[in-house]
């Protein structure tokens, strides 16, 4: 495996909790090139030949295995688009850890756009974790525009955890999903923006089969002068259940726009959207101050808990 410097290692810890080479299948991408790759008997990772990216093929029936595909960027001015396709075999049960960390100390923008497509076989289960992290004090922006497409066959289950807590200047996250009968999608998004950051999160989930269900929940905090848009659309084309929720705290001069979108094309589609945006309640701060915390410490605890 290619040697990683300390900054790259730190980014890996932030986005993938990796302290060393992971067990199981992995591909570590560093500054546009593979810094290490390993397939296993059941999980094959091969580079694409036409565009930059990987094909990850998981054999049917693969259980309790994991795939790590973190990306780290430390060169200022690097822009890349990466296409990763996941083929998840019927009846398998795997965890996929993605994530991107950018450290930009230079004056040019660094940008990583990861296009991930998931083809989830019948009755397969996946847990997908994607963390974004930015650091470095250069003037160049850290930009991430992930696109996630999920195609779920009958009875499959996908659980996605999307986390972006710090340091990414500009992000547009687009997630599309199509669910067949009895497929289940659960999304938990946690987002914090600060400074002048912009974060846009767009979901379009089509519930096409009977018994399909989706639960998309975003918890976010917008501080300083940052801006967030949460645009979640559910389309119910069959007897299905869908729920989206945006629960947000605004601080300082932060701004948040929540756009509910529910489209029911079947009389048995049950779709719900909830949204709540507001500042931290004064009595929450006072309660923590009566425990001896300063106002600032109280705010930090409340925000940390909210995004936990």
């Amino acid at each position, binding site marked *: 495996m290619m040697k990683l410097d300390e900054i790259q290692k730190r980014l890996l810890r932030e986005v993938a909790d990796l302290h060393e080479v992971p067990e199981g299948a992995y591909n570590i991408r560093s500054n546009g090139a593979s810094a290490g790759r390993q397939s296993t008997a059941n999980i094959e990772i091969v580079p694409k030949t036409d565009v930059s990216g990987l094909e990850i093929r998981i054999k049917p029936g693969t259980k309790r295995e994991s795939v790590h595909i973190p990306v780290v960027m430390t060169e200022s001015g690097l822009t890349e688009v990466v296409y990763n396709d996941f083929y998840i075999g019927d009846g398998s049960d795997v965890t996929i850890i993605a994530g991107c960390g950018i450290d930009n100390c230079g004056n040019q923008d660094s940008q990583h756009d990861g296009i991930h497509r998931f083809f989830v076989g019948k009755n397969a289960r996946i847990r997908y974790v994607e963390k974004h992290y930015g650091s470095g004090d250069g003037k160049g922006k850290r930009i991430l525009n992930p696109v996630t497409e999920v195609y779920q066959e009958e009875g499959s289950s996908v659980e996605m955890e999307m986390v972006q807590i710090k340091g990414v200047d500009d992000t547009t996250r687009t997630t599309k999903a199509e669910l067949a009968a009895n497929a289940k999608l659960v999304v938990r998004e946690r987002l914090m923006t600060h400074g002048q950051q912009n974060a846009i999160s767009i979901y379009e989930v089509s519930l096409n089969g009977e018994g399909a269900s989706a639960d998309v929940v975003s918890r976010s905090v917008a501080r300083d002068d940052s801006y967030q848009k949460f645009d979640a659309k559910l389309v119910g084309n069959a007897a299905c259940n869908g729920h989206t929720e945006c*629960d947000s705290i605004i601080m300082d001069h932060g701004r948040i726009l929540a756009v509910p979108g529910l489209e029911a094309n079947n009389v048995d589609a049950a779709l719900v959207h909830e949204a709540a945006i507001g500042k931290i309640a004064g009595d929450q701060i*006072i309660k923590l101050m*009566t*425990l001896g915390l300063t106002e600032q410490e109280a705010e930090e605890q409340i925000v940390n*808990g*909210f995004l*936990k």
Partner: protein
Amino acid sequence: MLELKNISFNVDQEGQDKEIIRNISLTLPDGQLTVITGPNGGGKSTLARLIAGIEKPASGQILWNGQDITGWSVTDRAKAGIAFAFQQPVRFKGIQVIDLIRLAAGKTVTVADACQYLSRVGLCARDYIDREVNASLSGGELKRIEIATVLARSAALTIFDEPEAGIDLWSFQNLIEVFEDMRARIAGSSILIISHQERILNIADEVVVLKDGQVAAQGPKDEILPELIGTSSAIPECRINMEGGVNHDEA
């Protein structure tokens, strides 16, 4: 020792200045359990909030162990050893019971220690320690967790604002035991309870009756309590639930 000297507090009511607390002077010596009682709207909770620093008096002085803390923030008073249990506890999304207990203790608390605080308020610790302090908890559960966090503070002065309010299925006797237990554990500590409950009044060293923002009566329990209960002009709230049940109207 806590001393209130000529404390007044006003609120703005439809453009009019309304006096909620009128020139109150009161001393709470160390080691004393004081219960403040009186009719609703008499200024009891306001007085408790003034002591904790949540409200600031219009005039007067608050002295804590001889030091003037009138201008101190809630945080500084907490650090100086004043704890406050809210009448209506606050909910937090994402913050777990163990987090609150750790923040209250102000130090690293093991899960076993945290469980002890919960057990003392009659909660099965294992079921609650990882729960979020959010809307999934009932009012009664939340209230007991509130009391557990205050116990974890082991403060020199602990103020309870209507601790019986919202306590649902938990037997009232347990609440009394919590107060007695606190006195035994924190030697010399004082406890101030805002309450309508006769059984809480019964464990007081001193009872203060607050009415229309003024001290209407003050003295040892044995002197004040018969007056409160025996006269037709007594404060009706104090006679509620003589059997020691729970006053749900206050929840």
